[in-house]
């Protein structure tokens, strides 16, 4: 097993990796960009080393230099940043540093998503229909011509990253180039790769993904399926495992196909194979994600397998030590991504100082986050603040629990999408489990919440008005202002 592992990331995933390292008795080595010194992943690590410049987290040369200088056994790049950089992976391998994530050969085969689809199709597996190649964002004429051949509506997808970023549906030709530009910019901001490709859309569709563990001997097990159909503002925000409303036969077929794809690419460690399911229930391969995913916690709750721990173990060359029969998938897990953004105002990011932060608790509730009361949400990084996952023996139980946990979750100082998530998990279509990617078009934020007691809120609003009037008007009798706001709401006798 490794002795020291460089955690080449920040935010909640870096905290997650630090924890997995420490659980295995491995020394976690954190790095930080200027201004990110006090971040939680740094505070919890065994060692902390500065990076010289802003944007070092996603600078492969800088990260490699640090890894070599510190003499670590392995680097865990998480997701985003340098996790899908072929050159970085290859240079690490040449320097004798293990990459806990996709190696250079796997990346070379999967990073070109168009080529990956072609290869899977050649093996006789049903796939989606992509454009003939990937495009730079400025190849306007070639992109328009390809789109015409594929037909509308179609998907614009970034070559790097996943549906959490950079995937957008285009319904009309006049939206195409603008969407390409935005997808490309979003992917470039996170992965440093601005290439995009097009894919014929399947509407209505559902997205299903299967996470797979593999060791160096080629043993593979799958960890069940997960639904990732729900997006908001082009980002996934709610995921559940297993996917609702799939028959057992469909599930078995999808699992088997995922394993077939994994064998085709000789996938190792932790990888995820993604499929689109059309209205008739037919599945088609769309992408391979050879790295740990943001939503891996949902599968962890379903199987009770610590995926990041397994990833470290497998990267160290240990055997899988687990047969498919030993993978138990029980109950239902629902995961919510809590972002520092304002769903009432176009999902504008909301950086700032977190003044209040209270986690939900109770059985079968887990939160992964880098945030705490007093933490900064930096303006320079992604707005993903926390991930909440709940588990229930049945879907009904999981739905009640996610509702309860979201109500308990309290964050003040920055605006979050908690209000949107609360609405989403109580939406009829979501509750029934028959949702598709079209769910993203539902206008959840437009109507005011129906079941509030407005009379009670009117009374509170009146109190709020008086509190402001009081603060701005020192002529208010002191008896009314003193002693009424902190420890006691009683007036001086």
């Amino acid at each position, binding site marked *: 097993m490794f002795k020291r592992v460089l955690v080449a990331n920040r935010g909640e995933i870096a905290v997650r990796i630090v924890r997995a390292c420490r659980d295995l008795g491995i020394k976690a080595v954190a790095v930080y960009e200027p201004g990110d010194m006090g971040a939680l992943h740094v505070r919890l690590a065994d060692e902390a080393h500065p990076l010289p410049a802003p944007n070092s987290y996603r600078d492969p040369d800088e990260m490699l230099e640090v890894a070599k200088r510190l003499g670590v056994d392995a680097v865990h790049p998480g997701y985003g940043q340098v996790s899908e950089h072929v050159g970085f992976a290859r240079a690490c391998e040449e320097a004798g540093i293990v990459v806990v994530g996709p190696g250079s050969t796997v990346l070379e085969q999967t990073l070109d998503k168009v080529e990956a689809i072609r290869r899977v199709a050649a093996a006789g597996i049903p796939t989606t229909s992509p454009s003939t190649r990937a495009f730079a964002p400025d190849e306007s004429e070639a992109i328009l011509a390809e789109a015409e051949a594929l037909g509308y509506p179609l998907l614009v997808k970034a070559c790097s990253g996943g549906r959490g970023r950079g995937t957008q549906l285009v319904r009309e030709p006049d939206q195409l180039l603008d969407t390409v530009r935005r997808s490309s910019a979003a992917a470039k901001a996170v992965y440093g790769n601005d290439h995009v490709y097009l894919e014929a859309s399947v509407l209505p569709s559902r997205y299903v993904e299967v996470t797979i563990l593999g060791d160096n001997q080629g043993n593979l097990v799958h960890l069940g399926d997960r639904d990732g159909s729900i997006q908001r503002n082009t980002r996934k925000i709610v995921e559940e495992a297993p996917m609702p409303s799939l028959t057992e036969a469909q599930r078995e077929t999808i699992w088997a196909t995922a394993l077939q794809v994994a064998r085709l690419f000789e996938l190792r460690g932790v990888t995820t194979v993604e499929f689109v399911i059309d209205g008739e229930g037919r599945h088609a391969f769309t992408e391979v994600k050879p790295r740990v995913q943001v939503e891996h916690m949902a599968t962890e709750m379903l199987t009770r397998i610590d995926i990041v721990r397994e990833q470290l173990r497998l990267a160290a060359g240990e055997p899988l030590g687990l047969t498919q029969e030993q993978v138990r998938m029980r109950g239902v897990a629902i995961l919510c991504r809590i972002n520092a953004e304002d769903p009432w105002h176009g999902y504008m990011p909301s950086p700032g100082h977190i003044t209040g932060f209270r986690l939900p608790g109770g059985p079968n509730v887990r939160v992964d986050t880098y945030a705490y009361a007093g933490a900064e949400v930096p303006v320079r990084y992604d707005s993903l603040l926390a991930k909440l996952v709940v588990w229930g023996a049945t879907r009904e139980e999981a739905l009640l629990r996610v509702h309860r946990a979201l109500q308990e979750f309290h964050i003040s100082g920055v605006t979050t999408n908690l209000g949107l998530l609360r609405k989403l998990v109580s939406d009829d279509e979501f509750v029934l489990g028959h949702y598709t990617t079209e769910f993203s078009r539902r206008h959840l934020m437009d109507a005011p919440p129906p079941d509030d007691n407005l009379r009670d809120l009117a009374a*509170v609003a*009146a109190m709020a*008005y008086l509190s402001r009037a009081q603060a701005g008007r020192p002529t208010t009798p002191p008896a009314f202002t003193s002693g009424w706001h902190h420890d006691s709401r009683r007036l001086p006798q």
Partner: protein
Amino acid sequence: MSKLLVTIDGNEFEVEVLGPPGPDGFVRVTVNGEPLRVAVSSMAAPEAIAWAIVDTRPQELIVDHDLRWIQSSRGRHGIHVRDLEAAVARPASGDGRIKAPIPGLIRRLMVEQGQLVEAGQPVLVLEAMKMENEIVAPRAGTVASINVKLGQSVKLQEQLVEIA
């Protein structure tokens, strides 16, 4: 003693606050004539209200500093409060200045000086937190000035565009 007209999502409530809180921490109020007791976590400022108990019903809340909305765990409600005893109503804000709601980089400018814009029309794209954020016109009018250039970094609250 205050008499207020509170409008929530278009529903009007006349709220009378009958003095400071009693020894039990509750303030007596009437809403549309119906007596209620209300306790709030803090009276320091609207945004300091984190929870309230109305009669026996507790709930956690977030209240906008400018009292434009109140948020329960179920969602956000638009509110408007008017003091029925105040002589002058506050004028509505007619500010056409668009300021940066977040520090970031100007990625695109979608309007030109002198151009007519409608309320809600996108005027520029501000990149921040690895997202492109469309900034829209707060009201209809003419673009009186554009105070930023493409590619420029802007600070929080820096004026970007003015609509006259």
